């Protein structure tokens, strides 16, 4: 069941997506002439590098701080390749560790959460090793991180996979010697539409209230769903200003990404090159 799902999802998504299909000429090679061109780049970049967008809270905004923060992020990115990855991707992080004998430490896991902006950006990796669930939080711009490898680049249906903690261990078990699965050049990032089976309650959270897409039927008594229905706030999606205050306006995004574009492109191009050179079929290592 598990082994077939990713491949199916991949082929399905290949048809639907056309995101990278037209990205034959990258923006840095061709100076941006058109306004629509810049806009399209923004559409790409904000998904790949969300941490470059500042904290949208109005009280905390300051253009100079944001500018300094971005320049520091770029300076760090020049020394380490921080690749494109999403919640649901499988990563291997190698970091300097003064406690290990080799002074290096490698951890493989699925990214279940990604948050924070600027230099505070971090991500949470989860794996099950010897039937023991282990999670490690990494700061993205921590100078002790030697490299981040994306072993499997894919997205999931939810923005946070914290429910994997309550799922059967099979869903978050990954081999530490897993090989890199390479996507064909120009392919969109596949969405893994796997539905996770949760363990019976007790849980760490009331998942039935979270409106999750990536879980199987929770098999709860009706009263749980009734209560979840009671607590829903369906009007919130109509609150235009709340929506506005949680995000950064497009004009500012264009400004930010056109500032960092050339620097980002360097690492992005290298990544694409790597992707092109070795192409292997996705192997089943779940």
């Amino acid at each position, binding site marked *: 069941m598990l082994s077939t799902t990713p491949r199916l999802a991949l082929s399905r998504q290949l048809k639907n997506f056309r995101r990278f299909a037209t990205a034959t000429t990258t923006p840095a090679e061709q100076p941006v002439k058109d306004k629509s061109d810049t806009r399209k780049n923004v559409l790409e970049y904000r998904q790949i590098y969300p941490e470059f967008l500042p904290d949208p809270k109005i*009280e*905390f905004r*300051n253009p*100079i*701080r944001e*500018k*300094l*923060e971005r320049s*520091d*992020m770029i*300076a*760090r990115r*020049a*020394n*380490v390749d921080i690749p494109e990855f999403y919640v649901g991707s499988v990563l291997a992080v190698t970091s*300097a*560790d*003064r406690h290990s004998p080799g*002074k290096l430490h490698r951890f493989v896991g699925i990214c279940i959460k990604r948050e924070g902006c*600027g*230099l*505070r950006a971090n991500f949470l990796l989860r794996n099950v090793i010897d039937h023991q669930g282990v999670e490690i939080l990494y*700061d993205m*711009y*921590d*100078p*002790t*991180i*030697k490299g981040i490898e994306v072993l499997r680049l894919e997205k999931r249906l939810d923005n946070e996979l914290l429910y994997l903690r309550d799922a059967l261990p099979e869903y978050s078990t990954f081999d530490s010697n897993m090989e890199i699965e390479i996507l064909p050049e120009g392919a969109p990032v596949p969405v893994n539409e796997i539905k996770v089976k949760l363990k019976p309650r007790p849980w760490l959270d009331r998942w039935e209230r979270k409106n999750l897409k990536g879980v199987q039927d929770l098999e709860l008594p009706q009263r749980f769903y009734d209560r979840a229905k009671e607590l829903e706030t369906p009007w919130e999606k109509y609150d235009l200003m709340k929506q506005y205050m949680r995000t950064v306006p497009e004009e500012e995004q264009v400004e930010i990404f056109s500032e960092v574009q050339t620097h980002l492109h360097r690492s992005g191009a290298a990544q694409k090159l790597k992707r092109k050179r070795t192409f292997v079929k996705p192997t089943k290592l779940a």
Partner: protein
Amino acid sequence: MALALTTTFTKSTVKFLEERLLLLTISCGPVRNKSKQNPKPRLRNPTWFTQKHRVSSDDNVTLENKEFLKEVVQDRYFNVDNEISKDLASNVIWRPGLQRTGVMARKIGIYPMWLKTGKKISTTLLQVLDNHVIKYYPPEDYDPQVKRVGRIYNRKGCLLLGAEGADPSTFTREYCGLFKDSGVIPKRHLARFFVSPDAVLPAGTLISALHFQAGNYVDVRGLTIDRGFQGVMKRHGFKGMPASHGVTKTHRRGGNIGGGGEKGRVWPGTKMPGHMGNRYRILRGLKIWRINTKYNVLFVSGQNIPGATNSIVYIYDTKLPARKPAEPLPFPTYIGTGEELSENIFDKEIHEFSEPTIVYSDKN
């Protein structure tokens, strides 16, 4: 008017004015016993406390004329080469007893940095504004509000600094008059700093972030965020009382405030609910980890500097004896030597973002 004129006459012009003003019907003779009629108030504001902002009204000035006003401001305050002479001061080299001026800065946010050991620290970014010296009051002229009794050791002068230049037409005429002598553009913020008479700076001197050095320690003063009337849990961090187990109506209360009998009263200083915030606090002994010379930003340790983001704070050399600098400081302030400075100056413990990844070796 007559009163005002007599007070404003200076010795040199009196004769001339007498001669001429006699022509006018206005009499300018001195008023007898003036000091007794209007004794100086015991508590008074400093001389620079005037109405600052003009009543905001629309001037109905056309766009071209607005441009013209901007052009005049530009010509008057920015296009002139009022270079302060480099022989600012004195050949005095800094020694521990001397007090330098502080600066005004804006708290612009917080972000993490890492040490060479891999440890993460939080730093607050303080952007030093365009501080200019407006006026100096020598120790004998400066008249403190509350007189100190007895002999005063180590008398300090008072340096008035302004920060953040703004369009003069938004201020009142009186307020703009404060800046007339120094020739700087009227500033939004004014502050006084006590300095040793040796550390005096001529009016119009610019003080930059390089007044401080990376690795040294500073004290930062700011106005804390106003949180209004708060209970003891938020204001003093009390624990409150249990939510259940028979507790009624006393979940967030402070509880007992003292015993009875002879001590049957509220003791002074008892922690109780009240107004929280909106008062000046000083955080002392913060290390400067990094200085950005392009934007004049100091990166100072800590994330609890009083005040909200984008509020004004005041930075002084630290008073803590153990953290006073060993090396001489730029005195009375930093004067550029003309050579290009790197954009960022780091403390030696800091791992720069442009440096390669940290690698531990077996030795440490």
